[in-house]
């Protein structure tokens, strides 16, 4: 159990790096954004893994609830709600850029775009 208690954080690291790898190596702009999505999702996992308390429940306290219920930590949840919104906003803006790049250059591969810019 001791070892498995860190499994979430390892998966966080692996997902983070899968995303980063895709962003660096893939020349396709859409694929870069997909990689960025995975990269950001990994961070959500890091934060949400912090909030868990063994034997706890979601932090919703009904009126007149018993005192001895354990609740998970609400703060990382609030932060990640914001981060998810930020993520989708960035993705939407990036996709709009991809569409415009496709219209302006006829391709969405970074290497081709760079060589077209160089020829200009």
């Amino acid at each position, binding site marked *: 159990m001791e070892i498995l208690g860190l499994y979430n954080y390892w998966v966080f690291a692996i997902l*983070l790096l899968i995303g*980063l790898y895709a*962003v660096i190596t893939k020349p396709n*702009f859409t694929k*870069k*954004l997909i990689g*960025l999505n995975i*990269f*950001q999702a990994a*961070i959500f996992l*890091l*934060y949400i893994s*912090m909030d868990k308390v063994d034997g706890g429940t979601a932090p919703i306290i009904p009126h007149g609830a018993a005192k001895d219920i354990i609740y998970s930590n609400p*703060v*990382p949840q609030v*932060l990640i709600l*914001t*981060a998810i919104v*930020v993520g989708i*906003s*960035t993705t939407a*803006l*990036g996709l709009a*850029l*991809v569409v*415009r*790049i496709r219209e*302006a*250059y006829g391709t969405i591969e*970074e290497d081709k*775009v*760079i060589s077209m*810019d160089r020829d*200009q």
Partner: protein
Amino acid sequence: MLAAQYPVLPVIVPLLSAPIAALMPNRSLAWIMASLVSALVFATAVALTVIVSAQGMISYEVGGWPAPYGIEVRVDSFSVVMLLVISGASTLALISGKASIDAQIPSDRQPLFFAAWLLALAAYSGIAVAGDAFNIFVFMEISSLAGYVLIANGPDRRALPATFKYLVMGTIGASFYLIGVGLAYMMTGTLNIADLHARLGDVPYLRPILLSAAFVTIGLAVKAAVFPLHVWMPNAYARAPSAVAVFLSACSTKAAVYVMLRFDFMIFGGAFAHHDVQFSTVLMSLALLGMLIGSAVAIYERDVKRMLGYSSVGQIGYILLGASMISLGGVSAGVIHMFNHAMIKGGLFLAMGALVLRLGGGTLDDLKGAGRTMPWTMGAFVLLGLSLIGMPLTAGFISKWYLVQAALDLGTLGIVLIAAILISSLMAVVYIWRVVEVAYFQSPQAGASKHQEAPLMMLVPLWAVVLANVYFGLDPSIPVDLATNAANILLEHAK
């Protein structure tokens, strides 16, 4: 009554006006609104400067909740330096930018453009006054997204891949910052900057904190275009609309450096032993490389806006060099240079905006003979260039003077640093000279006779910046006092 609310006015006023500006039926109305709001923020910044100089730090509880539970807004001498830079650059860029914005952006897109501008202004101000680590992330993302929108509106298609690169690297930088904040939160349970500082020292485990410091510093280094993470920056500035280049060159990287200094001095500085040594070793070497390589690349660049972008890579190096000395003199020299460089680079991009507006392009070939057709603009460019090089009687000299003085206290290492500063300044002489040479000593291209001087609405703000450069070169007491106070605050926490 309102005076107590000054700390949040630079944020809430532009936020309230952005949705209205976006729906304006007419481009001039949107421009007037953005300029007025920007001027108002500048006025608030001046008022805050006066208050902070008189009373010291102001703490403001958003939502009325006490500090570690609610979000704190905190204004000190360092914040007001940033606020003055941000609101001043925004106001000057808007006032001078009317003609170039009209020339570069279709009129039906302009209300959206000005709304994005106001959002960027609000967000940069939000970063400057933030006292909460996660709150900085939120405003950093607004500022970045608004920045992408502003740059993507650039005049030709090359703005699009430049923006995309900025978007990808900016998001990675912000996400690294978010990871770092998460790790610090994991080990302390708080997000408030002052509270983090107080609690990080008691954490028994070192590795998560080290990891946190590394992620925050690297993430912000990407955003600050610290060498070698600067690859997004020259193109982003060069392809942006001229007015946007003025605004962003003065604010975007500075805001990231500002947050980096806050974190590394005020949070991690006191948290564990040797942080100052690690910070200064890593950053000093990067700063030196940036100063030398950035300036060297700038020499070979034929597009003047890209040249200025690479020059900024070098100038960020000066700021970090000052900070990495971890002494009162060094840190205040860095902060002075943040202020002065924003003024110089903003002014240079302003001059470039005027040149591009009249000449149609910003490469060295386009600039041939500009010294004769546009004497006032080129004159301002030259004076600002001298300030960038660090000629006495200009603001640029003051920052280098303080930097050299701080380096002298370091003994042998200081001599090396001074040599690097001199070499980098000499390279600045070379790249500025190349512009001067084509502008004054080469005959204009065919058909250039119809070129005329830039409109008065651009020349007046441009020369205001030039005069400010000279004024702060003769009497630097305002930035120096503010910077010394800021350095005192930073170093006090680092102990």
